[in-house]
């Protein structure tokens, strides 16, 4: 549905996005993940045709966003970062304006605006001026204007930023409910958000795509198996040797010296570990299995990139 081919954008000599390539399939929810300033917003602006790319091409439903800008924009619902809205209009007037400009047509306009207000639950504030609304309502009005006209593609730039936890959950479940019927790109710098809402994640850092996969695969890829963190009190060299002897242990590293150890293991060995520690008469204070989260993948990728850049310099 969305094909981004080697897209670059330079502001003067400064690259904001370099050779970004990814695809979004119809009905898929794609998370666009990266730290602040990674080039997420720039990429989104290129997708909506607001910025022409310096190089590369973007196609939405087979149409180039630069050549067929108007046709593409008809298919897109966009929620810009920080939700800029016309504060001096009431919610209903603003949504009517959005419907008019998206060409919804007089006959269907009432119905369509009613539908999005219901979906986003903003009927209660329909007659209020947007500038008087709370952040949560503004966000929902922003989402509502993106949904007006029932576009096939939704581009949402940080849709949950600045909301309280309950509102975040509401927005996330709303977005999840689009799965299958709309193609969604959602940018965020919050990792759990991507793993909770999205079917696939593209990680971008310093303008370059550093990874692209499902949240689960990305987690598995990094951890390369299980890890166990244990805190054992006993003579350090003996403990280390005993741990290494256990079958199924690939490697052991001693932690900060306060009796903590990190084991890379191939299978579940926690019962054997506990038994071995007890048999030797040492004390076992703590034992947890750590699995790599998206957070680890992310930090790992982002740090890798940083060292690489420093090497070049």
């Amino acid at each position: 549905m969305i094909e981004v081919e080697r897209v670059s954008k330079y502001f003067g000599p400064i690259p904001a996005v370099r050779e970004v390539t990814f695809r979004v399939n119809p009905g898929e929810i794609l998370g666009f993940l990266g730290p602040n300033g990674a080039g997420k917003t720039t990429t989104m602006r290129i997708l909506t045709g607001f910025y022409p790319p310096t190089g590369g091409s973007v196609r939405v439903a087979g149409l180039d966003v630069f050549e067929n800008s108007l046709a593409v924009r008809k298919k897109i619902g966009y929620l810009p970062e920080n939700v800029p809205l016309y504060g001096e209009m009431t919610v209903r007037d603003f949504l009517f304006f959005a419907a008019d400009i998206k060409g919804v047509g007089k006959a269907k306009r009432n119905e369509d605006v009613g539908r999005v207000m219901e979906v986003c639950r903003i009927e209660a504030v329909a007659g209020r001026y947007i500038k008087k609304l709370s952040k949560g309502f503004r966000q929902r009005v922003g989402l509502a204007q993106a949904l007006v006209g029932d576009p096939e593609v939704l581009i949402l730039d940080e849709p949950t930023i600045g909301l309280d936890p309950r509102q975040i959950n509401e927005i996330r479940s709303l977005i999840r409910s689009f799965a299958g019927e709309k193609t969604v790109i959602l940018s965020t710098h919050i990792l759990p958000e991507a793993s909770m809402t999205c079917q696939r994640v593209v990680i971008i850092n310093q303008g370059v795509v550093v990874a692209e996969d499902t949240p689960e695969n990305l987690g598995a890829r990094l951890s390369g198996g299980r890890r166990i963190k244990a805190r054992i009190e006993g003579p350090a060299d003996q403990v280390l040797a005993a741990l290494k002897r256990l079958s199924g242990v690939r490697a052991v590293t001693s932690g900060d010296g306060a009796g903590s150890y990190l084991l890379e293991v191939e299978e579940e060995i926690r019962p054997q570990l506990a038994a071995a520690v007890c048999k030797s008469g040492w004390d076992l204070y703590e034992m947890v299995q750590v699995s790599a989260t998206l957070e680890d993948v992310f930090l790992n990728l982002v740090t890798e990139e940083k060292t690489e850049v420093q090497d070049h310099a």
Partner: protein
Amino acid sequence: MRNFWTIFKRELRVYFTSPIAYAIMVIFLVAAGYFFYNSLAYYSLLSFQAMRNPYLENLNLVDMVLSPLFGNISVVMLLMVPVLTMRLWSEEKKSGTLELLFSYPVRDIEVLLGKYCAALAVFMIMVGLTGFYQLVLWALGQSAPGVALSGYLGMLLLGAAFIALGVFVSSLTENQIVAAAVSFGVLLLFWVIGWSASTVEAPLGRVFEYLSLVKHLVNFAKGVIDTADVVYYLVMIFFFLFLTMRSLESKRWRG
């Protein structure tokens, strides 16, 4: 065309749901009313004297009241138009709604013309309200409808050119105060550039004189519609609207 109307209606509505239009109109009408009253009062005073003084025979309404009225109104416009146009792009740039607006399936030119015509509509309503003065003159048995119509056509063209310039300047900055100040400065420059005509050497002096916004209004205010003047204003309007289009485009390339 449909999008043009949507933008036009929204912009016009913003003018009238915010205090902008009312503030500008009230100040404008008070100032214009004062000018009108003053020149009319002076005219009637001289008319009484003329009955006793044969040298004042050539006294007439157009020279004494109408021409100065249009001249004075245009000075007030010089101050008011920048305030009218300053928000058109600057506000949207600052609040970020410009990005939202251009994510909708709407052409740049439709947005530009919608905004431009909304400002022009406010201007026309404002100047149109001074039509009341013509009724006063008519009631006094002193009307000169031909000159009045030509004068209003001149005002319309002048205002349209002012607004085109203001719209362009507003597209250059996200700060409304800067937009207003620069528009005012540039308009003032176009206003007084004709003064150099007599001090600068011939070819350049003629150019300065031709560029002067005032000079072209003088004929209209006297009841003379010269195509050269009409063309001058139309060229100004198209030139600045064209520059605005380029400014919007370049903004996107540069980010």
